[in-house]
């Protein structure tokens, strides 16, 4: 039987959280809008005579993202019109980028290998369609609050080998965009959208398969992994029967846990791309790009490596604590203070993770360290007092003592706890243990 290697590429769209839209000054806040069509203007509503003017910050953030992903930057770039008709597309074309995207040829690492980033480009989002019935008639309702919101599109090479790796890739990108403070990537809101191109190549063959299936409109990582895994199975079955899977677009049905056909991609859309005559091209200088590069913070991957190296933090702990630049700075302060005050950085971190240290939002680093010290503060206790407590506890807990003597040494922890409760002060656990075990002999 033939085995196949999955050939998977992902297309990810993320809404940038600029204050205003991509080509106009409308508020960029579609999800929080209390009513439909309240954040529009002639430009994003597609009124005749309206003209686009690009948002500088959205462009800077796209470059920032590209540099963080090790991309090359096109020093000369432009916006192009992607022409097609759809009710949520106000102008009958989407302003996007065709052949000269802002960023290209980058990479990101995953636990299963490196994924090459083909390109990152900037475009505008469409309005939103809702389905409803009005006066007995099935209709679609359109809200243009989202029309014109800046969207980055990240396309990778078909280097992904399966659902798990796809999920890891997607999550890493989400983490990075949140870390750079350019996007919230809230998937349930559509702030980040996933699409996968999936095909299978017989093991040992060179070149790409002669078909690919696109799965679109996946709005969670769990569904992404499930959809990919389902597709791999479905396509394997077809290929084993000697059939080539139909080149088409499919959706994911979470209820049935299956992909389903949406339309054939055979007659591919003709978008008639041409440079947008309303928007002068963009040209960067080397100084501009290096300034953006310099403004990049230490990236999560670098932070994680540093923490693992210097403080022996585990991968997962380090990942958890590097969600934002603010958090990294805070943790670094804590680690530095711990080091200065000769406390174990690893212990503090573990107490933080395990919520033994209770932290409030604005707690400064020193407050955290102080809490740790207090938590583990030990008081030297009078030996007589200790012996009295030990004796009392042993007499009050004959069952536990019996268990201990029968070999169940775990019960020691319980007895120690009882002794600590009796003493009511923080005593060095070692001291208690020695006294207790001696008494139990």
């Amino acid at each position, binding site marked *: 039987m033939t085995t196949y290697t999955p050939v998977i590429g992902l297309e990810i769209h993320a809404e940038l959280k600029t204050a*205003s839209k991509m080509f106009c000054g409308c508020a960029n806040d579609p999800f929080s809008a209390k009513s439909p069509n309240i954040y529009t*203007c002639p430009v994003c509503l597609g009124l005749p005579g309206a003209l686009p003017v690009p948002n500088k910050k959205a462009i800077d953030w796209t470059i920032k993202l590209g540099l963080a992903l090790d991309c090359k930057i096109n020093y000369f770039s432009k916006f192009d019109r992607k022409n097609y008709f759809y009710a949520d597309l106000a102008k009958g074309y989407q302003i996007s980028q065709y052949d000269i995207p802002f960023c290209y040829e980058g990479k990101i690492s995953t636990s299963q290998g490196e994924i090459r980033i083909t390109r990152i480009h900037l475009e505008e989002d469409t309005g939103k369609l809702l*389905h409803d019935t009005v006066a007995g008639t099935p209709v679609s309702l359109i809200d243009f609050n989202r029309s014109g919101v800046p969207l980055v599109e990240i396309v990778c090479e078909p280097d992904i080998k399966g659902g798990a790796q796809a999920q890891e890739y997607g999550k890493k990108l989400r983490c990075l965009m949140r870390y750079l403070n350019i996007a919230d990537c809230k998937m349930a809101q559509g702030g980040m959208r996933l699409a996968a191109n999936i095909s299978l190549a017989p093991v040992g063959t060179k070149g790409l398969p002669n078909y690919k299936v696109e799965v679109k409109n996946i709005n969670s990582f769990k569904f992404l992994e499930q959809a990919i895994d389902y597709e791999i199975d479905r396509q394997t079955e077809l290929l084993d029967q000697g059939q080539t899977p139909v080149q088409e677009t499919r959706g994911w049905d979470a209820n049935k846990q299956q992909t389903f056909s949406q339309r054939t991609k055979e007659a591919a859309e003709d978008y008639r791309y041409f440079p947008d005559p309303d928007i*002068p091209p963009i040209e960067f200088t080397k100084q501009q790009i290096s300034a953006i590069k310099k403004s990049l913070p230490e990236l999560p991957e670098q932070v994680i490596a540093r923490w693992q190296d210097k403080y022996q933090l585990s991968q997962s702990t380090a990942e958890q604590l590097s969600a934002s630049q603010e958090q990294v700075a805070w943790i670094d302060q804590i680690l530095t203070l711990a080091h200065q005050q000769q406390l174990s950085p690893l212990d503090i971190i573990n107490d933080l993770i395990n919520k033994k240290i209770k932290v409030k939002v604005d707690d400064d680093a020193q407050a955290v360290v102080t809490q740790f010290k207090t938590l583990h503060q030990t008081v030297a206790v009078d030996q007589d007092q200790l012996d009295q407590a030990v004796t009392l506890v042993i007499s009050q807990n004959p069952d536990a003592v019996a268990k201990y003597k029968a070999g169940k040494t775990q019960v020691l922890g319980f007895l120690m706890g009882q002794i600590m409760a009796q003493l009511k002060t923080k005593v060095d656990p070692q001291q208690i243990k020695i006294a207790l075990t001696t008494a139990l002999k």
Partner: protein
Amino acid sequence: MATIDQNTIKHVAQLANIPITPSETESLTHDFIKTLEVVNQLQKISVQDVTTTHQVTNLKNVLRDDEINHAKMLTQEQALANAKNTHQGYFVVPRILTK
């Protein structure tokens, strides 16, 4: 050189989202051929080593700051004012089946 026939016209009409009747298909085919006859004259001039001009301004980097322009924004009422079919703040179209 492109061969224009009624199938070309039908395909283009679909791409352009323009409804055309059979008699329009016929007259448009004729119009296309006539127009392309004139346009094809462009083939006679040499464009070797010539780059395309998409914009005559030589402008670059015309961008705006990331600020909300309240004065330019429309109220919901203004946005909907010219639409034939609206419902509770939305524009309405017959149900669209898939994307």
